[in-house]
């Protein structure tokens, strides 16, 4: 992952630590350059190394953090700890000389914070049952991490079942809730789609959908 580093000529110790933590440093002269070089997915985090002018570095950090919403890790000398005490504009700081493990952890926390918020959003869109995952935003289904090619109605039926596990549903109920309209196939359509889902889930998972005699189907 690319990480912008300000100023454009960071210390070699920082550069080595950033690369060691698994990031690709992108030196930037100013905020405008940082904006201009933004990758398609946006920056996950930025690093501002305070080398001389603390005030200027803090104002750059504040622009990156406040205006652009990119979390900023400030790199400071031990003597500056009190100076940054009541300053805003950065998310976290780290003392130089840099401990590479500490940088990894702090970057991960920032990166994780950024990833976490997008993951949290994605998580609401993710339905899980054992090794089955349904992404309701992208309509993709995976089993054990491998995509399964479902048709729209197969996907919608599976989603209904995963969202409503542990109870028996009649064919009429499923038809009304999933198809929502009366279809040429009538309620036997449900049987057809259950069989197709079982076939696509594979033999060892086909028992997830159980037939409840003279009622209908139950999931899980």
């Amino acid at each position: 992952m690319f990480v912008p580093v300000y100023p454009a000529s960071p210390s070699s110790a920082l550069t080595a630590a950033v690369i060691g933590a698994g990031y690709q440093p992108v030196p930037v002269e100013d905020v405008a350059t940082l904006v201009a070089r933004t990758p398609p997915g946006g920056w996950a985090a930025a690093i501002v190394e305070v080398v001389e002018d603390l005030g200027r570095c803090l104002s750059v950090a504040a622009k990156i953090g406040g205006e652009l919403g990119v979390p900023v890790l400030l790199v400071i000398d031990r003597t500056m700890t009190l100076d940054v005490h009541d300053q805003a504009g950065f998310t976290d700081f780290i003392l130089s000389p840099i401990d590479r493990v500490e940088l990894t952890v702090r970057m991960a926390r920032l990166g994780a914070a950024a990833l976490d918020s997008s993951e949290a959003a994605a998580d609401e869109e993710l339905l899980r049952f054992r090794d089955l995952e349904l992404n309701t935003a992208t309509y993709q289904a995976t089993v054990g991490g491998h995509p399964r090619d479902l048709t729209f109605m197969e996907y919608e039926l599976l989603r209904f079942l995963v969202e409503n596990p542990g109870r028996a549903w009649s064919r009429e109920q499923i038809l009304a809730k999933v198809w929502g309209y009366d279809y040429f196939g009538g309620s036997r359509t449900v049987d057809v789609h259950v069989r197709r889902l079982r076939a696509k889930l594979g033999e060892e998972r086909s028992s997830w959908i159980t037939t409840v005699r003279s009622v209908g189907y139950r999931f899980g």
Partner: protein
Amino acid sequence: MSKQHEYVLRTVSERGIRFIRLWFTDILGQLKSFAITPAELEAALEEGARFDGSAIDGFSRDKEADMLARPDPTTFQILPWRPDGGVARMFCDVETPDGQPFPGDPRGVLKRNLSRAHDLGYAFYVGPEVEFFYFRDSGPEPQVLDRGGYFDLTPLDVAQEYRRATIMALERLGIPVASSHHEVSPSQHELNLRHTDALTMADSLMTTRLAVKEVAMEHGIYATFMPKPLEGYDGSGLHLHLSLFLSDENAFYEQGAEHGLSKVGRGFIAGLLRHGREITAVTNQWVNSYKRLVTGFDAPVFETWGRTDQSAVVRIPITKPDKASSTRIEYRAPDPACNPYLAFSVILAAGLAGIENAYDLPAEGGSASGAHRLPSTLSDALDALEQSELARTALGDHVFEWFLRDKRREWDRYAGHVSQFELDRYLAVL
């Protein structure tokens, strides 16, 4: 945008689909296809995709040159036999440029017939037994792969591997296979598909024919659905297990009735027996189809029904007492080279006529009409079709007339052919 369209668009981008094949069927049941790219997909879903219909059988009148294929998003499916997985397909309904259903579209014909059944409260379900042959190639002399017979196991059944690969491909396409086995003739095989509503099944049969041929080609052999490729051996049939559902209930079943058959079930059979001759040209549409419908093989010849009689056109499969609700009707005339959309349309129309007009079911083994035999040639079958108001209504004027014209031409060409049979028998003695 509808959720179904969104589903298709998202899946195409998420799964890296590069081509979307738009499938439709001509009147003779040949699968037709053209491909669009993801960039064209959204417009195709919303407005239909334009194509030149002038080269396609039954679409060929000048004013039909420009046609619209409107994809059915519920049929979107990634094709499993492309190794890179980059190709998907959708079945299409064919429309005229002004957006009206094109009367020469077989899928539209079936939809119209199903809609009529739907108005009566019925859902029409079909479960087919698909028979076919594997040969070494498609050359003029069919070469069998084995001398195996019914239910033979390896090593006589060398094609087991091909069947297995085919079943895997079908399951990935969402077409569950109930069972498969080696059939009676050398190199002949059968796939039994789980029953579905008739529209899904007609789509599934089109897909199955392609999948069987694709998998055979991958293995360097050739698969054919020709009804009777080997003289002296059983031909390939497409036995259809038919049922009607009224809501959740099997409309053919009545507890305590003879053979568990309800009035609806008896009427449906009576309709098939009475109109069987009229619809045979559609269920068995080739000159070669009638080489299969002869006595001495496991093929129907008579317009009768029975429970075990192999030469009856309708069979009532014997169901276990606890499975009585699986009561169904097996119609044994069709062959796998038919157009499934049109075949299902006329079969349904015949059955519904029997129900609506309350035809009497003749005794087991007996016949409904004076004509006891199914048509013995394509020409006979066309004569019967031409007189059939039932078939004309079910198919619509456009398909009915085009079909008769095209098939008469096929028969005329065949009638002028001097066969090896004649040369062998007559040349030396006459």
